[in-house]
C-alpha cells in the first residue's frame, strides 16, 4: 500500500520538485497546446451563445481556414494577401451558412441544427480536399520553430507568438462584446431570441456576424496548429478535444473556453510526463475526457457556465 502511494504520488511529485525548470517547460508546453484547444472552443462558444447551435463543424472550419491560407500561399500569394483573402473566404462562408443552412432551419429543434452542422462538417471537408488537395502541407508564417532560454527555461518562439496572438484576439473579442452596440446585441440574442427580435435586433445579421467571428478565430487556430504540425486533415480532430474543454469551461462562457483549454492542456502534459511512464503512456489521449466526465458528474454547468435550474 505504502509502496503504491510512493510510486503513484510521491515519486512524480519528487520528480517535479527535482527539476523546477523542466516542470516550467512542461507547463509552458501544456499552456501552448491548451491555447489551441481554447481557440477551437472559443469558436464553439461564440456560435452556441448567439444561435444556440452546437457547431460540430468548428474543427473543420479550422482545417478549412488553414487549407485556404496554405493553398493561396502555395500559389504564390504573400502572407498578408493570403490572410486577407482567407478572412474574406471565411466571411463569405458565414454568409452562405446563414442563408443555406440556418435560415431555412430557424425555430427547429436543436438536434436538427446539430445534424445540419454534421452535414456542414463533411461538406467543408470535401470542399477543402477538392479545392486544395489532401496531402500534408507545410505552413510557414516566417516565425522559426526554435527556442531561446529565459532563466534556464526553454521557450519556443512559435509558441510564444501564438500565445500573444491568442491573448490579443481574446482581448479584442472581450472588448467587442462588452463595449459595442453589436456586442450588446449579441449578448441580448444569446440570452433570449424572442426578446431580442422584439427590440429590433435582426437575428440573421447577428448570425452572420458570429459565424464570421468564429471563422476568424478558426483562421488563427488553423495558422498556429498548422505552423506547428503541418496542415493536414487530422487537424479537424482537434475539435474533439474542444468538447471536454467546453464541458469544463461551460458552453456559454468565453473566459470558460480559455481557462478550460489551458487547464486541459497543462493537465494532460503534466499527466503524460510525470504519470505516463507508470501506466505505459498515452495519458494525453484520454485525460481530457476523464476530466470532463468528472465535471459532468460534479458540476455539469462547467466552471463558468450558468447554473442549470430546471423548473418542474
Amino acid at each position: 500500500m505504502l509502496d503504491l502511494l510512493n510510486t503513484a504520488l510521491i515519486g512524480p511529485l519528487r520528480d517535479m520538485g527535482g527539476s523546477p525548470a523542466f516542470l516550467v517547460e512542461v507547463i509552458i508546453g501544456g499552456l501552448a497546446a491548451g491555447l489551441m484547444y481554447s481557440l477551437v472552443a472559443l469558436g464553439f462558444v461564440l456560435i452556441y451563445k448567439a444561435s444556440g447551435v452546437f457547431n460540430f463543424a468548428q474543427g473543420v472550419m479550422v482545417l478549412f481556414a488553414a487549407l485556404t491560407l496554405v493553398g493561396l500561399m502555395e500559389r504564390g500569394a504573400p502572407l498578408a494577401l493570403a490572410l486577407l483573402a482567407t478572412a474574406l473566404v471565411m466571411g463569405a462562408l458565414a454568409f452562405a451558412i446563414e442563408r443555406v443552412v440556418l435560415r431555412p432551419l430557424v425555430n427547429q429543434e436543436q438536434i436538427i441544427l446539430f445534424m445540419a452542422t454534421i452535414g456542414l462538417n463533411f461538406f467543408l471537408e470535401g470542399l477543402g480536399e477538392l479545392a486544395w488537395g489532401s496531402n500534408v502541407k507545410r505552413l510557414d508564417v516566417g516565425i522559426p520553430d526554435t527556442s531561446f532560454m529565459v532563466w534556464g527555461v526553454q521557450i519556443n518562439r512559435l509558441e510564444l507568438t501564438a500565445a500573444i496572438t491568442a491573448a490579443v484576439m481574446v482581448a479584442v473579442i472581450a472588448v467587442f462584446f462588452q463595449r459595442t452596440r453589436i456586442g450588446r446585441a449579441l449578448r441580448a440574442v444569446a440570452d433570449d431570441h424572442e426578446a431580442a427580435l422584439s427590440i429590433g435586433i435582426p437575428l440573421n445579421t447577428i448570425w452572420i456576424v458570429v459565424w464570421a467571428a468564429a471563422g476568424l478565430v478558426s483562421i488563427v487556430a488553423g495558422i498556429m496548429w498548422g505552423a506547428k504540425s503541418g496542415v493536414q486533415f487530422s487537424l479537424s480532430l482537434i475539435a474533439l478535444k474542444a468538447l471536454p474543454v467546453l464541458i469544463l469551461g461551460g458552453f456559454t462562457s468565453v473566459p470558460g473556453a480559455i481557462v478550460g483549454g489551458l487547464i486541459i492542456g497543462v493537465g494532460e502534459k503534466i499527466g503524460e510526463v510525470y504519470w505516463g511512464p507508470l501506466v505505459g503512456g498515452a495519458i494525453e489521449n484520454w485525460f481530457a475526457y476523464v476530466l470532463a466526465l468528472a465535471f459532468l458528474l460534479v458540476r455539469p454547468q462547467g466552471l463558468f457556465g450558468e447554473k442549470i435550474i430546471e423548473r418542474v
Partner: protein
Amino acid sequence: MNAGPTPLLEVDEVSVRFGAVQALEGVSLEIGRGEIVAIIGPNGAGKTTLLNVVSGFYHPSEGHIRFEGRDRTHLRPYDVAALGVARTFQNVALFKGMSVLDNIMTGRLLKMRGSFLLEALHWGPARRQELLHREFVERIIDFLEIESIRKAPAGKLPYGLQKRVELARALAAEPKLLLLDEPMAGMNVEEKEDMCRFILGVNDEFGTTIALIEHDMSVVMDISHRVIALDYGRKIADGTPDEVRADQAVIDAYLGVAHA
C-alpha cells in the same frame, strides 16, 4: 373613437391558422393615436396571437395589417420594431444574465448609430452618444421607480419587478405603439396599482398609444379608453368599457354559454 384621419394601426380581416387550429378568423380593428385599448377574452381566444401578428412574430394567412396607413403585413419582428412598435411578453422575456440597466439600454439599440471602433475605444462621438442614451434611460428608470435595482441582474428580480423592467426596455425604444401582453399577470394588488399608474403615465406623458391584453376586469375598466373582446378567434365586441361590459356576447363568452 379614432383620433386623426388615419388610425395608427389597422388590422383588416386578419386570419391566422396553425395547421387545423384557427387562431384568428377575420379579425378587423383599428387603434387610433393616443388610445389605450384593452384586448380581452377567455383563454385561447386569440389575444396573444393577435399581438404576435401585429408585432411580426406571426404572419397572417389572410388579411392585412397597416401601420400609419401603410401595409405592414409581411414585416419581420425587427422591422416592426424599427417602425416604432415595442412589446412585452406574457412570460417576461428579459435578458436574464444582464443587469437591469443593460436590459433597458438594449431597448435603445435601434436609436444608436456610429462607428464600432470608436465604441470599442469608448472615445469621441461614441462616448457622447452612449452618455446621451444613458441619460434617456435614466429618465425611464426614474419614471418607473426602479432606481434601486439598476445594477441587479434582471433574472434574479421578483416577478413584478421583472415586468416593470420589461416595460422600461420597451419604453426605451420610444415606441409609437406599445403592446403589453398581460402586464399585470401574477402581481399583487399593490403592484397592479403601480403598473396601472405607469401605463396611464406613459400614455399621458409620452402620448404613447397602448394596446394591452389583460384579464383583470377592474383594471381593464379603469384604464382603457376602449375595449375589444375576442372569443374563439373572432371579434365579438368593440366599444367603450361600459358598452363592452354590458354586451351579451361578451357575457356569454365569459360565462361559457354553449356556442350554437
